[in-house]
């Protein structure tokens, strides 16, 4: 794995709402190496989408605001760039695909029109050349009849086809980093398998790094090199994918892994994490997971746990690991 392509340091994002200040991200640090697929996993409202949007600085402001931190991309702090410089990064060097391909595309323009607009905007090519690039990309995402697809409107394609068109569009400008926000969540399993396979092949062969956001631990396990687990606006654990699934350290990660039904386990009782995800207007003090944690002890409700490294490359934010290697 190469050097850090993206390095997020102590990033905090808040949303100022009538209900109060939502602390969506608090002191999040994360890095993505060149060509690496990093999985970001967490439940609804944990801040994983906000993190991706903060990297591209597409958080609605107001109500949102990046209140602290740095986002270093190839050593440059994206948060310090002006609008014009940032526009040159978006789509060119960092691209993003979203969960709902239908709502990311304009319904009144054809796929070809929208794809070619992206290509001509970011690369100095004429229309014919742009068309050629689009056709080539559509072929690479295994789209049948790419010529016809270009002439179609978004509603004429299925969800899986649209998501493949989105991948083609986003990768056409040869970005170094792709932010993929739950790109297969709205798809059926067999279609999800198609899209994941194509996404992995294309990004690996082109050396594109991916920040892959998902709530699905199965998808994460199959696709990613490294995994970061988020809970209530904080990263609680990061590790190589094999290590994280084989030896999860944070009680939340363990709970998640035990709570998923698995095909091989039959009808056994599932382990449960009691309670539900806290609101982020008034998150629990100390460790944000402590009200639901079975292992909580004295410092948990008072002190925010630091990041410990119980094994090389394995980071966990939990007081259990304060004194080196405990359980």
């Amino acid at each position, binding site marked *: 794995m190469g050097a850090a392509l993206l390095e997020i340091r102590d990033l905090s994002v808040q949303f100022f709402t009538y209900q109060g200040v939502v602390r969506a991200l608090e002191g999040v640090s994360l890095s993505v190496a060149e060509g690496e697929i990093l999985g970001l996993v967490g439940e609804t409202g944990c801040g994983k989408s906000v993190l991706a949007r903060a990297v591209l600085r597409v958080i609605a402001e107001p109500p949102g605001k990046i209140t602290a931190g740095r986002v270093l991309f190839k050593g440059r702090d994206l948060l310090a760039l002006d609008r014009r410089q940032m526009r040159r990064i978006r789509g060119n060097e960092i691209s993003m695909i979203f969960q709902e391909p239908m709502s990311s595309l304009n319904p009144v323009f054809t796929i070809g029109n929208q794809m070619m607009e992206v290509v001509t905007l970011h690369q100095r090519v004429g229309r014919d050349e742009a068309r050629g690039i689009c056709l080539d990309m559509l072929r690479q995402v295994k789209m049948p009849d790419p010529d016809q697809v270009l002439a179609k409107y978004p509603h004429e394609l299925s969800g899986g086809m649209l998501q493949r068109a989105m991948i083609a569009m986003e990768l056409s400008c040869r970005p170094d980093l792709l932010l993929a926000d739950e790109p297969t969540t709205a798809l059926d*399993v067999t279609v999800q398998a198609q899209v994941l396979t194509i996404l992995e092949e294309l990004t690996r062969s082109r050396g594109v790094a991916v920040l892959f956001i998902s709530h699905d*631990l199965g998808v994460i396990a199959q696709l990613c090199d490294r995994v970061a687990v988020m809970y209530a606006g904080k990263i609680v654990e990061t590790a190589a994918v094999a290590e994280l699934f084989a030896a999860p350290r944070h009680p939340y990660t363990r709970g998640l892994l035990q709570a*998923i*039904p*698995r095909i091989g386990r039959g009808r056994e009782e*599932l382990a449960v994490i009691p309670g539900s995800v806290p609101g982020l207007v008034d998150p629990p003090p100390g460790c944000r997971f402590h009200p639901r944690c079975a292992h909580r002890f004295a410092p948990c409700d008072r002190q925010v746990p630091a990041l410990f490294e119980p094994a090389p490359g394995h980071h966990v934010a939990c007081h259990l690991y304060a004194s080196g290697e405990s359980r």
Partner: protein
Amino acid sequence: MEPIIAARDLVKHFPIRQGFLGRRVMHLKAVDGVSFHVNRGETLGLVGESGCGKTTVGRLLLNLLGLDGGSVHFKGVELSALQGRALREVRRHLQVVFQDPHSSLDPRMLVKKIVGAPLEVNGLARGAEVVRRVKAMLAEVGLNEEHVYRYPHEFSGGQRQRIGIARALITGPEFIVFDEPTSALDVSVQAQILNLAKDLQRRHGYAYLFISHDLSVIRHMSHRIAVMYLGIIVESGGAEELFGEPLHPYTRALIGALPQPDPAVRRRLSTLPGDVPSPVHLPPGCRFHPRCPEAFQICSRSAPGLREVKHGHWAACHLYS
């Protein structure tokens, strides 16, 4: 043993009107000849991708949609033959828990009303007795008695789904349809609801039809499983046999496409070519043949019927005829 619910050749076609004044009528064959039964204390899992008709099947069983063909028997009594009071009397034994706990609870009703209404509608209880039974029911599904005087928005998604379950159980049903009850929930909360549903079944012997697109959830919940594709059941059998030795190529593809939460068994996900065809223009012959990796000549010409390939394990595929 007589099954609690027996469905025979269920058919539901939705008309789609197009053309001038909507005179050209086509039919979306949502459910096209589906049969199964569910026994007491048993869960039948109904799995399939979006648009396969699984939700429509659930609604047909409950008489929430009218049948275009076939019959539903509850303990031997045909539902379509019943009317008025007799139908209402039977219906309280058939209940449903919906997918979205946000839209299936009236935001302007107190929990007391939401959970208690079925008692009043069916004339099972009145006044203070309703409140007493609602409280007992809330305790049964893991909520508190004080929750009686709260509104749905005061609850989390998981708690709301518990309210939905309480509403379904309060009339003392024997058969409950769970229509994707955890699709809108996070995994940590999903586990709570799945455990609750199983626990209630163990204690009361309910028969469940559990509808989901999620194979792992279906495997976890079901004793027997039926796999649907484009309005028909393509395979059914015991959960263990069906996952251990899937017969139909579609079932195999579904299982093979499921990403396992274990990086140690990383493998190439099996992919099917193309998308699910429109249920308005069904392919001739076997409905799965345009995407089937094992299709041969006969598949595009004649539709295979369900056959019992092994004891209790059925498949609708020419490979086994």
